[in-house]
Structures are given as structure tokens and as C-alpha cells.
């Protein structure tokens, strides 16, 4: 075929534009961070970005608020970003952006132990300190993990609550968060072991996943109650799940007959504790968790600790903390809420 003038023009335009684009990108990036790299540390302020599992989740709103308080206290700049849905690939673009912006510290609750690993590694090599909180990644991808309580403690308190409420015999089910979430999966594994060893008359019917989405958790609760007519208790190790399950049961015939417990926030659960749907539930203070995570990040950025066992740092009003095995810092023990004490808390 003949190469007409028009086609030559097309080819020419293509070549010119491609070379323009690549040279523009390549050229300007070689000139160093010339273009106004204000945020990044030249001013000396520590930039901290909180990346929860997803935005619009009241648990993380509270924890990140604690983080913001801490960052303000030590004079850094705070930012909160996150995906709308709790997926690992949703978190990757924000990790990339943090690396590009030269953020000093990234505090993240991971949606998956491995999937965000290489993005975190890239951020670390760009100079960002990575602190995981609430939900960990595999240890090589982060500098520190701030855990709310020991996994054993969290699993045990939930098993104790639900078995006590159903008289230590009967069928129960677990309504979890996202299927890959590191923290929930760790607790569920320990809960299954605890049940098998210490509660032989209690049968775990199913583990279903509400994805930390209110509507999905609500629907899964309904499905559980329909599929297992003899169900006596639902344990939800996620604040979104327990709130949705309580909401469903409190307006159904199962109120008072099927126990609802797990990890919940006092403000979300207050109504259901008062109307009898929920007897007890547990949590720690997520605000303290975010606060501690922010101070741990600051200690890393300042070079005061490196994340190895035995390192100590001060976390503002919470006091002194020591780094344990595997680069883990423990906040404390879980706390059980019930009708008697729930009014004392506001989060």
C-alpha cells in the first residue's frame, strides 16, 4: 500500500508526541525534586499519613482521630487517606502517592498481609517509615506493628463472652470483616483452637464475611439466622459487623434469643446494650491505638528506635512503651463493656 501523506502525517504526529511525552517526564525528573517539593521534610516537620482499611469506618475514624491528636501534639503534619472499599489493591495507590510525596511516616491498617507488601517496600526505599496498626502485614514489609492487645487475649475474651452468654453449649457463628484481613483471621484461628480445646459443647457453624461493609454484614446476619435455625450466638470480631448484626437482631424475633457479641465501639453499641440485644462486648480504645501508632512513627522517624526488640519510646500521655518480639508494640488488654459501664465512654 502506498504511504499517503495523511498516513505519514499520522506516523509523524505519533512519533513526535511520544518523544515529547517521554522526554518531558524523563527530563524533568532528572532535574531532581526541583518543582516545589515543599511537603517532604525540607521544613523539618514530620509528615504522617494514616491509611486505614477503608474510609467511612467509625472504628478508624476514632483511631485516626487519636493519631491526629498525637501528630498535633508533636508538631507534625497529619493526613488521612484510604479507599472506599476495604480491598488491598485499593490501598496500593495511596501507598504509592505517599512514597512520591516523600511522606516521613505511613501508618497503615493492612487489608492483606502480603498484597500491599511490594508497594510498602517501595515506600520504605523512598525513605518512608512504615508502621502497621490494628491489622499487620508480614514483618519484612513494615518497621513496627502497633497491636491493640495480644491476639490470644482478643480471641479469648470473645470466646469467653459468647460461651458464657449461651450457657457453654449450642451453636454459634462468626461474622467477620474482609476474608483476607490479617487481624480477624489471626483471631478466628485462635478462637477455633480455644473452642475446640475448652468448649466441647459449643459448635461453630460457619464463618461469614461482611467485608466491613454495613449492608453486607446486615445481609449476612439475616442469611446466617435463616441457614442455621438453632443458632444461639453470633460473634463479630469487627465493629462494623457487630453493629450491623445487632441492628438486625434488635428489630427481629431473635432479640434476646440469639446472643450478639464481639468487638464493638461503645457509641455504636449503646442503644443495643440498653435494649437488651447485646449483653457484653469488648474492645480497646481505638483512639489510644492511633495515638500510640503516631508516636511510634515519630520515634522511628527521629531515629530514636529502629523497631528491634527492647527499644523503648515515650508515647505522650500514654507513657513509656517497649518493643516486643517481631517488632510488635502492645497497647494493653481488651476491655469488656456492658450495661454497667458503657455510659462512661464516648467513642
Amino acid at each position, binding site marked *: 500500500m502506498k504511504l499517503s501523506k495523511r498516513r505519514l502525517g*499520522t506516523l*509523524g504526529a505519533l512519533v513526535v*508526541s511520544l518523544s515529547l511525552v517521554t522526554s518531558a517526564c524523563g527530563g524533568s525528573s532528572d532535574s531532581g525534586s526541583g518543582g516545589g517539593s515543599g511537603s517532604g521534610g525540607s521544613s523539618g516537620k514530620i509528615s504522617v499519613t494514616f491509611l486505614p482499611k477503608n474510609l467511612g469506618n467509625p472504628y478508624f475514624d476514632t483511631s485516626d482521630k487519636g493519631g491526629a491528636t498525637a501528630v498535633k501534639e508533636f508538631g507534625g503534619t497529619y493526613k488521612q487517606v484510604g479507599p472506599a472499599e476495604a480491598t488491598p*489493591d485499593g490501598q496500593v*495507590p495511596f501507598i504509592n502517592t505517599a512514597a*512520591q510525596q516523600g511522606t516521613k511516616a505511613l501508618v497503615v491498617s493492612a487489608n492483606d498481609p502480603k498484597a500491599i507488601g511490594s508497594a510498602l517496600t517501595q515506600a520504605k526505599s523512598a525513605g518512608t517509615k512504615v508502621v502497621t496498626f490494628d491489622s499487620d502485614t508480614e514483618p519484612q514489609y513494615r518497621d513496627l506493628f502497633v497491636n491493640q492487645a495480644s491476639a490470644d487475649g482478643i480471641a479469648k475474651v470473645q470466646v469467653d463472652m459468647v460461651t458464657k452468654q449461651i450457657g457453654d453449649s449450642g451453636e454459634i457463628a462468626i461474622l467477620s470483616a474482609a476474608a*483476607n484481613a490479617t487481624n480477624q483471621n489471626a483471631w478466628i484461628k485462635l478462637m477455633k483452637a480455644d473452642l475446640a480445646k475448652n468448649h466441647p459443647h459449643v459448635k461453630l457453624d460457619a464463618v461469614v464475611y461482611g*467485608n466491613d461493609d454495613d449492608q453486607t454484614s446486615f445481609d449476612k446476619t439475616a442469611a446466617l439466622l435463616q441457614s442455621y435455625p438453632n443458632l444461639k450466638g453470633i460473634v463479630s470480631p469487627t465493629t462494623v459487623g457487630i453493629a450491623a448484626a445487632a441492628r438486625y437482631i434488635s428489630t427481629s424475633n431473635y432479640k434476646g434469643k440469639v446472643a450478639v457479641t464481639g468487638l464493638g465501639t461503645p457509641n455504636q453499641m449503646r442503644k443495643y446494650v440498653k435494649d437488651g440485644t447485646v449483653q457484653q462486648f469488648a474492645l480497646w480504645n481505638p483512639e489510644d491505638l492511633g495515638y500510640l501508632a503516631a508516636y511510634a512513627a515519630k520515634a522511628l522517624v527521629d531515629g530514636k528506635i529502629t523497631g528491634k526488640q527492647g527499644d523503648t519510646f515515650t508515647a505522650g500521655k500514654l507513657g513509656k512503651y517497649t518493643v516486643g518480639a517481631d517488632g510488635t508494640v502492645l497497647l494493653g488488654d481488651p476491655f469488656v463493656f456492658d450495661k454497667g459501664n458503657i455510659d462512661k465512654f464516648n467513642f
Partner: protein
Amino acid sequence: MTRSYAAHQHPLWRRALVTREVAVIGLLVVVLVWASSAVPNFSGPLTLPFLLLDVAPILLIALPMTLVIITGEIDLSVASVVGLSSVLLGSLHQHGMSIPLAALVALFVGLLCGLFNGFLVAYVGLPSLAVTIGTLALYRGLAVGILGTTAVTDFPTRWTDLAQQWTTVGRIPYIVFPILVLAVVFGLLLHFTSFGRGIFDIGLNAEAAHFSGVDVARAKLVTFVLTGLVSALAGIDYTLRYGSARGDNATGLELQVIAAVLLGGVSIFGGRGALHGVLGGVLLIGVISSALRLENVTVNVINIIIGLLLVLSVMSTSLLAWVSALRRGIATRRGHSGSEMRRAAA
């Protein structure tokens, strides 16, 4: 000597430069210059590789989508094929299959998906909008059905590195090279072969194309098979890039692809468009998203801006067409017979 084709109204330089494709590429250069100077950290070393990694699946799917839209059809099921391919890759790998073999299976399934779409549109004669909305749901349902809500995330590093790392010189992600080759192939196919000529003819007037000897049904089938196949390829890239195979991967990607194609100057009514414009459109959306993200603009606002850009771009085509029709109307009424009359007489 009489010429056998109508003389062009405008000189070559005007025809080459005053096109929609050049406008998009010009806008891209303008945005790049603005971003490099005004957006903090845009000139940083990580911007280019992250940008190219982000647009890679969109660029891939935009290539066959251009062909589909030029024929006057549309394929909304591409993102669902990405999800299905992703899930197949993950699930087969989980059951012990090697990555290359699992990838081949995923590609084959993508081809089948495209074949199904193409058969319904080209041979049964159903409108592509309706068919691909249906297959959007069908393929996505299959994808979510296979893995449920779990994600498969332990892929071997040698494969994820291929999809995630970049060269030291030039900071170009490795994945860009095969994509560029594919872009050149599609460019040659569309602009330099008789098959490509046929694609444009179908978009302008399918009946006339049919009577000119173009096998319209087969050409449309081929375009849908290509979108299916390339979407599956994009699914493999997406999965390895994010290290996560999930049924709901890439939900909504089809809209980004179509937006990029339309921004690149391809007419939604079919019959008009060029591949270099589409490349420009994809990069434009990528650069705008990257720059706005660095400015800490939320994803919602970024979507609003891109949506506005798309609406303006589609409107501008109609606006320009209306303006030039007006000018032609004025010219004829003024008695400017000139070349028009000579052409009519020929």
C-alpha cells in the same frame, strides 16, 4: 489531468495539525508542563513509573476498544473479563498450576468471552450496548462466584516483579514495552491495512460497507474477540501488579477505558478516530489523575473532573461539526460555488 478524488479544501499542514488527536496530545503536553512546575513532587523519580503502571491496563484495553467504538459498537464487559481472568489466574495458581500456564488459560477464557459477545452482536444482530451490559454482569458474577470474597495473594515474586518493577535507566516499567509493541500492532492494523479501512467503513455506514465487499459480521466478531483477549491480558497484568486476585478487581474500569478512548478523539458514533489520539487520551487521564492525587485531591473530585473533561470533549465534536456546517451553509448561500460545483459536475 483530472484527479479522480475530490481536491482537499485545506493544505496538508492544516489537515495534519488541526485534528482532534493533535488537540489531545497538545493538551497532554500543556498539562505535563503545568504539573511539572506547579504540582509538588510531580517531577520526582517515582511519578513516571507509578503513572505508567497505573495506566497500563487501561491502555491495553483501550487498543481494541478503539476498534470496537469505531465500528459503532461498544463493549462494556471488559472490566468483568479483567476480573474473571484475574480470578482464574489466582485460583489456578492456588491449585498448583504454574503462572504461565494459568495465564494461557485465562487468555483463552477471555477469548471465549469475546467470542460470545461478538457472536451475539455480529451474527445474531443484537445491540452491543444490551449484550455487553448483560455479559458485564454475567462475567463479573462468574468471577466473584469462583473465588468468593477471598483474594489470592501469594504470587511468586519473579512474576510480580515483572509487572511492578521498572528499568533503572529512564524509569520505564518493564510492562510498558510489550504494551507499546501491541499499540504499534493495533496502530498498523487500524490505519495501514484493508481490515482497518473496513472498520472505518463499517462505522460510517455498515450497509454501504457490506455492499462494498466488507464482511461486516466477521469484522465485528474480530473486534469483540480482540477486546476479550486483551482484557484477559490486562487482567493478568492487574493481578500481578497489585499482587491480588479478587473477583471484584477492576470494577468500573470499562468507564475509564471508554473515557480515554473518547477523549482521544474517537467518535462515539463510529467511523472516526485514530490510535495516537487514544494513546494521548489514556496518558492525559493518567497524568491528570496522578497530578491531582499528588495535590491531595480526593478520588471523587478526580472522577468529577475527568467526567467533565469527557463531556466537554464529546460536546466539542458536535459543537465543531455544527459550526462547520454553519460555515458551509453560509458559503453556499453566498454563491461560493467554486470547488463544490466542480465536484458535483464531475
